[in-house]
């Protein structure tokens, strides 16, 4: 195969291109790293775009579940259906606040990534992680109470949608917290160079923002009456 650039190959290329032969080896248009003008910049941009696309898909997944919920909730005569518990509005409201604050920390960090000193970034991320964990713990406790009350996945469409929808969100938060914790620890230990740090924080920042932004919608739809 023609992985070696021979003269013969150059000639066929001249014929094929019909014009001047392309430069041999790394020419001005080929920095020698797969066409990327600035390798680190391009892979950063690729990663950010890929994350954005993933989030788009994720939103569609939630849209499917939320669609189902909306059909049931607004199609029902009584909601919650008779015999089903009212959801804990107050404590979840506070929990919503906690999650929103963590989101604010995340966004601030992300915005000031080139301005803030390393220490401050680490601190802000630690706080974000802790707030995320608090959210999960409160949620877990509430679920525990609901299940004890007898409200289960199999409790009609109310139970089904509640646990799948809120559960999917909780899984997202869990994943995000784990990821965030990993990034924070690596940051604290100075394991990331500047480029890696910026990319990781941008990626987890995007993901965290989505997870946080979804929550008030779910809270409003599912908990509010």
């Amino acid at each position, binding site marked *: 195969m023609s992985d070696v650039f021979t003269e013969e190959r150059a000639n066929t*290329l001249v014929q094929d291109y*019909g014009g001047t032969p*392309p430069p041999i080896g790394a020419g001005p*248009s080929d920095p020698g790293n797969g066409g990327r003008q600035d390798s680190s910049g391009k892979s950063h941009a690729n990663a950010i775009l890929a994350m954005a696309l993933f989030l*788009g898909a994720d939103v569609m*997944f939630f849209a499917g579940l939320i669609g*189902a919920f909306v059909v049931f909730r607004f199609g029902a005569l009584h909601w919650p259906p008779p015999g089903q518990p009212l959801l804990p509005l107050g404590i979840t409201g506070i929990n919503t606040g906690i999650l929103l604050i963590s989101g604010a920390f995340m966004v601030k960090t992300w915005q000031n990534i080139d301005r803030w000193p390393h220490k401050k970034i680490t601190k802000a991320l630690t706080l974000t992680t802790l707030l995320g964990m608090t959210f999960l713990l409160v949620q877990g406790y509430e679920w525990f109470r609901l299940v004890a009350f007898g409200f289960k996945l199999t409790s*009609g469409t109310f139970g089904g949608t509640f646990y799948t929808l809120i559960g999917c969100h909780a899984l997202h938060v869990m994943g995000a917290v784990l990821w965030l914790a990993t990034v924070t620890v690596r940051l604290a230990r100075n394991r990331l160079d500047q480029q890696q740090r910026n990319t990781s924080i941008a990626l987890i920042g995007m993901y965290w923002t989505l997870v946080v932004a979804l929550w008030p919608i779910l809270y409003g739809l599912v908990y509010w009456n």
Partner: protein
Amino acid sequence: MSEATAVKEHISHEHHGFMNTYIFSLDHKMIGKQFLLLGLIMLLLGGGLALLVRWQLAYPEQPLPLIGASQHYLETGEAETAMDSYWDSELSKTEDEQGWLVQKMPVGIITPAFYNALFTMHATIMVFFVVMPILVGAFGNYLIPLMIGTRDMAFPLLNMLSFWIAVVSGAIMLAGFFVPGGHAATGWTGYPPLSTDPAWTGVDWGQNLWCISLIVLGISSLMGSINYITTIINMRAPGMTYMRMPMVIWALFIVAILLLLALPVLTAALAMLVFDRLAGTTFFNPAGGGDPLLWQHLFWFFGHPEVYILILPGMGITSEILPVFSRKPIFGYKAMVLAMASLAFLSWIVWGHHMFQSGMNPSMGMTFMITTMVIAVPSAIKTFNWLGTLWGGSIRFTVPMLNSLAFVSMFVIGGLSGIFMASSAVDIFIHDTYYIVAHIHYVVFGGSIFAIFAGVYYWFPKMFGRMMNEPLAKVHFWLSFIAFNCTFFPMHILGVGGHMRRIYNPMQYEFLQQFEHMNIFITMSAFALGLTQLILLFNVFHSMFRGKKAGDNPWNANTLEWTAATPPPHGNFDAIPTVHHAPYEYSAPGISEDWLSQTNELQPTNGNGH
């Protein structure tokens, strides 16, 4: 490891052992070929299932040829042939000891339960494991980096994972044939409540595996689509503006967006279905407050974009091939791109046309009728522009061209038959009849599969460095074209006669007695169509090793893949090309050749319409 070093590594480690080259390759071209192979194997399987379905429809409850028991045996119980003795010994065993075959088709007669599994799996395999892997997986992977002028996908590792996850998904799907209770038998649309409770079908793990397999496939498709979109947005060669991208890249770009956004909705619906089946939820079960129509809404919200996922790459391939063999710029490049974009957009708001008779609020029927009528417009625009491309050309009837022309004319029939169903009143009669089956096959076989033929014949030289055998390919084309029309055109007539789809035995109905001969004719044509595909397979594998060596640009085409060596090495290009032109500058004035590569710096003397 950063992206850049990954790519360097990737380029320098060429021919790096069998495993890395052929199995866990990170090279987009090899992954494309792997998808092609996966699709072709599944095509054989899916086609085989269809032929079994056809046999039953033409000769209901008669033993299959070759493997079925003889008439003598059926009448007298005396074994005459070797198969007779086989059936005889199997039938004398207890039920749990009986083999797989005798459970599905005792004495060679397909049982009703197995029949339902057959057409369910035929459609599932064809949609998810043939057309998608080949059009999107194989052509997408192979063509995107080559045609936009880059060395590989943005995320080669993700690309490899995407393929192997698709294989896992396929394996899960096939496993369903061998579980107790048989495979999913609720149609490729899997409507609940039929699909929610084993009590209704006797199918247990078959349906579960069907769901799980499609969820897994969703992951594969997610990885693929993220990769495609990122690559196309961020990695185009210098000078490759969006409006200089070849049409097939535009098509794949739009398809990737549809895949990205549509598949997750199916995943959500499948997750709910699995919960209903295994965890006792009642999303789709009215007894527990659920709603069976919810599934239909979610399924078709995914499903209609899905049908455009199946056809858009075919449109792209056709738009690629028509200019090359008309030696003429494509007619209305911008209109073509806009038409595809509007198809993609409109495909989100027409899903209800699959549900006109479902019991959905009839006032929604009106809305969906209007949107559906509107979506026929971009399809018409595409057709007119293809005709415009032929107009004034210098047409060469090569095999890729013949298949592309077939695509255009078959797509016209499929699109026009869609208009009948789009009118919700007319749809009352033809919904769930063979009319729909005819429509589907004109768009998906006449469209997508002929586009696959065209694409394989067109890019084979680049992929494998050899030409395919032309006479054989022509025979394959003409036989396919004729057999295809003999198989599927009469289905319109069956539909007009009211012949329902998904029925086991049409001879149970008085009003369908008259169609016995037509069903036999269709079945014979279908077998001819199936056998004809063996010519293609032979040609592919024969030419791969024995074909005439191909040059770098056997068709004198303009797009970038033809500037790479044949077959392209790892990393594709000696140097990343610079693009100077739109992709279809054929027969340009002031140029001595009748083609003008996108990398050629020369400019035509009169630049009409750039």
